[in-house]
């Protein structure tokens, strides 16, 4: 047996794995299997949006012009930056600096909160403009096809709402990981931070596609 691991990281070896390396690979593989299911989850929604857009494109175009390009762009920048700070958390955890890793995790979660804050502001604007397609609420549309506009905003709220839910879940999970990292529960094992990072980057990936399809197709 070639065990070149530190005693500390071996203490983190669960009994079903042969060594730390196999454990690490199984963890990241498991996360990727989950993310593959998420690809189908968001992929199916995005694909149906594009399908309906190809049919009702004049109204969906009007819908896109109701969305604020700048607000969406700011939120994209926030999420991209949060992915970078998450990478810094993984990097510092890899180098055994658990205090810095916890710091960068908290920064990442704060950027996630900023994203949610901007999103709430955006939803508030839709509320003010009477663009929320819920039965019983007044839906004001001056274009030709209010029914199609309702469909556009149903897609908008479903896609961004489910994405925001993923961000919120991510923030809560980050706090748990950050707390345990700060308490040095994981020792030299950086994998919990790495796995947290995989999830967070995926949420960023979804937004990388949502931003252009919802906000940028203006021609």
């Amino acid at each position, binding site marked *: 047996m070639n065990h*070149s*691991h*530190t005693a500390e*990281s071996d203490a983190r070896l669960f009994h079903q794995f042969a060594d*730390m*390396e196999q454990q690490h*690979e199984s963890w*990241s*593989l498991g996360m*990727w*299997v989950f*993310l*593959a*299911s998420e*690809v*189908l989850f968001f*992929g*199916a929604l995005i*694909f149906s949006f594009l*399908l309906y857009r*190809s*049919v*009702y*494109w*004049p109204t969906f175009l009007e819908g896109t012009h109701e969305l604020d*390009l700048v607000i969406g*762009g700011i939120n*994209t*920048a926030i999420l*991209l*930056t949060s*992915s*970078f700070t*998450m*990478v*810094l958390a993984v*990097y510092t955890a*890899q*180098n*055994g600096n658990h205090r810095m890793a916890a710091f960068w995790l908290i920064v990442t979660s704060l950027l996630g909160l900023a994203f949610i804050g901007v999103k709430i502001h955006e939803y508030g604007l839709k509320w003010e403009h009477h663009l929320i397609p819920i039965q019983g609420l007044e839906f004001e549309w001056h274009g030709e*096809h209010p029914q*199609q506009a309702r469909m556009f905003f149903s897609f908008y709220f479903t896609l961004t709402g489910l994405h925001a839910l993923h961000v919120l879940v991510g923030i809560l999970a980050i706090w748990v990981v950050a707390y345990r990292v700060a308490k040095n529960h994981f020792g*030299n094992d950086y994998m919990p931070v*790495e796995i947290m*990072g*995989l999830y967070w*980057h*995926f949420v*960023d*990936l979804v937004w*990388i*596609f949502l*931003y*252009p*399809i919802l906000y*940028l*197709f*203006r*021609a």
Partner: protein
Amino acid sequence: MNQQQTHHPEHHIGLGTYVAVFVALMVLLVVTVAMIHVDLGRTGGFIVAMLIASVKALLVMIYFMHLRTARALTRLFVVFGFFWFAILVVITLSDYLTRAGWPPRV
């Protein structure tokens, strides 16, 4: 320096690479927003925006999500995630695109 770190040098991507990828992502964000001022037509604009988004997604997956240093099995699982999605798209389109009177007049 702990032993584990020297044991897995191949798992580590440098800080400089991370910074470069982050800068590239921000530049691509500016580019994709700026493209709305370029008239490429409806289809052209769509294709360019999706291409830029795909490049951003690949940068995130390869560098931030460490596919560059991942095992072949992990990469295979990632590819298959998108492969299942491709099946979903192909089967759905094979229905819609072969319907009489598609796209409907609205």
